[in-house]
């Protein structure tokens, strides 16, 4: 046990799989011990877990600097809200629609990337996309109610469960988060996921291997858009009112921070990032006015001393925590 040897580790991959399953099961205890405030934070973490997992596909796995994430998030939230408010669509169905519309937004973002708009061009055009969407929410008064925001109906149900307090929301969010995280993890470990990472490593080589790179770039964006779109639909129910202010530039910076703090290209890292940057600001409440300062300092420190994110601390415990989507 005490010997330092690369092969003998405290945790094997097999044990780790059980550990991953255990986390959500263990989480089921939370509503019985937490008050509404803590539960709200937990629910926010579940929403941001999907936000970060979705964003990480683009930033980490595909390696593209695209900042359209808030746009996906907002589009998901507004889609769900608009369908529920105006169409009387059940929440469950509206989540599905948010995934579809989010995916379409992802497709739109991928078109720019395919057109050779990459790196900073992509970053800037996607930032602009996000801000233009916010302008649309703000000026689409008739539908979005402008800056008053769109109030979510009181009586919403997920498969018959009334979502009228944090507890049922927690169970529904946990279910959605587990399903989508697992699906994303499976996707990233499949041939598709490997192709996506291969494109990050070397797009030209990947293309020369006969892999249709454009198809996988589109796929990565669409999947990212869908996952974040669902997160948006969850966010709408979490905050009960969808407001343009919630989808500004600061929001995308927080998303970006979550990805980097947790660990780029890692699903476990995404979860860690979402947990860290959702809970820390709550902790900082004790130091009024120092929020931004702390946020900035933490990310700087992580970038300097843990360039692979907090998840790399786990790698020191056991290499089994490393998610290998790619072998050359």
């Amino acid at each position, binding site marked *: 046990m005490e010997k330092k040897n690369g092969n003998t580790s405290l945790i094997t991959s097999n044990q780790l799989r059980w550990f991953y399953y255990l986390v959500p099961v263990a989480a089921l205890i939370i509503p019985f011990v937490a*008050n509404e*405030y803590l539960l709200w934070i937990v629910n926010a973490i579940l929403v941001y877990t999907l936000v970060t997992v979705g964003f990480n596909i683009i930033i980490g796995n595909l390696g593209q600097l695209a900042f359209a994430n808030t746009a996906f998030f907002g589009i998901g939230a507004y889609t769900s809200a608009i369908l529920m408010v105006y169409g009387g669509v059940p929440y469950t169905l509206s989540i599905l629609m948010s995934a579809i519309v989010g995916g379409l937004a992802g497709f739109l973002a991928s078109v720019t990337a395919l057109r050779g708009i990459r790196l900073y061009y992509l970053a800037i055009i996607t930032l602009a996309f996000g801000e233009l969407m916010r302008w649309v929410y703000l000026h689409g008064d008739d539908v979005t109610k*402008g800056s008053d925001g769109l109030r979510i109906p009181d009586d919403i149900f997920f498969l018959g469960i009334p979502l009228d307090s944090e507890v049922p929301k927690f169970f*529904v969010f946990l279910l959605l988060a587990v399903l989508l995280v697992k699906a994303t993890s499976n996707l990233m470990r499949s041939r598709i996921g490997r192709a996506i990472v291969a494109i990050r490593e070397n797009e030209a080589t990947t293309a020369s291997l006969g892999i249709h790179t454009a198809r996988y770039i589109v796929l990565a964006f669409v999947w990212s858009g869908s996952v974040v779109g669902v997160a948006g639909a969850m966010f709408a129910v979490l*905050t009960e009112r969808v407001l343009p202010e*919630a989808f500004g530039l*600061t929001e995308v910076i927080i998303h970006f921070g979550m990805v980097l703090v947790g660990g780029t290209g890692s699903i476990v890292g995404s979860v860690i990032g979402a947990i860290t940057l959702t809970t820390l600001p709550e902790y900082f409440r004790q130091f009024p006015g120092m929020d931004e300062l702390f946020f900035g300092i933490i990310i700087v420190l992580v970038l300097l001393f843990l360039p692979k994110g907090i998840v790399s601390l786990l790698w020191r415990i056991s290499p089994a925590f490393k998610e290998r989507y790619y072998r050359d």
Partner: protein
Amino acid sequence: MKSFLIKCMFGAMALGVLLIGNTVKAEDWETTGLTDKAIKVGVMGPFTGNASSYSKTQIGLMAYFKHINDQGGIHGRKFEMFPEDTACAPAKGIAAAKKLVHQDKVFYLHGNSCSAVAMAVKPTVSPTGIPWIIAHAVNPKITMPVNEKKSIYHGVPAGPAYGSTMGEFVMSKPGAKRIAMITHTNDWAKAYCDPAIKVIKATGGEIVLEQALERGQTDATAQVLKLKGAKPDFILGCLYEAETVIFLRDAKKYGLRIPVMGTAGTDLENTLERLGDKDAVKDYYVLHAFVDKVDGPKMKKWNDIILKYNPDETITGFSAVSMASGVAAVKALQNVGPDLTRSKFIAELDKIKGLSTGILACDITWSATDRHGCKKSAVAGFVDGNPTVLSSWGKPW
């Protein structure tokens, strides 16, 4: 494995649903946040973020509470304040509200700048029935129609009160008919401008031109030239401080010498200080919530309280705004007597009628059906080169 997981989850879900029921006992609810020595008050405000200059008003409110504490408190209880940052961001505001309600378990909530945050927080606070006094945000929908648990109060003029004052003042200028507007496109600006337009249209005016000037713009040439071309009698300006300054500067620059009516988001002295040009503000009229100039003799008492507890604070038009509803809350708490409960507090708040706070230019009147406590505001403008508080065109307060 997965199906097992899902079963687990649904099982737990069902359990959770069962547990939600009435876990909060009624008598606990009445006295939550109270001890023999303390009344816990949650004070939400934008202590960070791009609207942090509004948090001056929460600083003022808390200074007043500290002042009451130093006077011996209320029936032996002292205010214990829980300032919470909303950063003027909806999600952060909701977290703040949840924390105050469910973790800190305050007796009541008092504060809130940023209407968007108050609107976002409302679904969280409203169902709990915890008394909540809005001391700064202006969106009328926060308090009216009265919420189900009848627990939310507006302690400053809400949009319609401010807005109609703007409209009435504009129309009180002899011959005013053609009105133009320059506004931000957010709820804050709408809360002022919409009711003003209503009053203007109802009293025979018309809106001849509408211009947008967004936050962060540093030039208003295009807007000023448009306005100049429209030749209005009066301009309604629903702009924040910085943009007001930019607009007035450019208005002077291009010779647009038409009176401008501004919101309570700005004040005369500050605008003048920032412009550094008396000539540019000479046609600027602005909502003025107070009975006197910001640094006038009637305000000295209140400003001194703020400065006593915050010696470095710069007093602006925001500083004392929330103190008026603080006065009202203190009065209600005093009237309840030593056996304080939330229901009794709400009942006493509803009994406040025509309370002259000595701060705001309106009397606070609340009832079970009308929670807009403040129905009017004064206006400040230059008369013969001197800043003056006015009630209508040419008529001092």
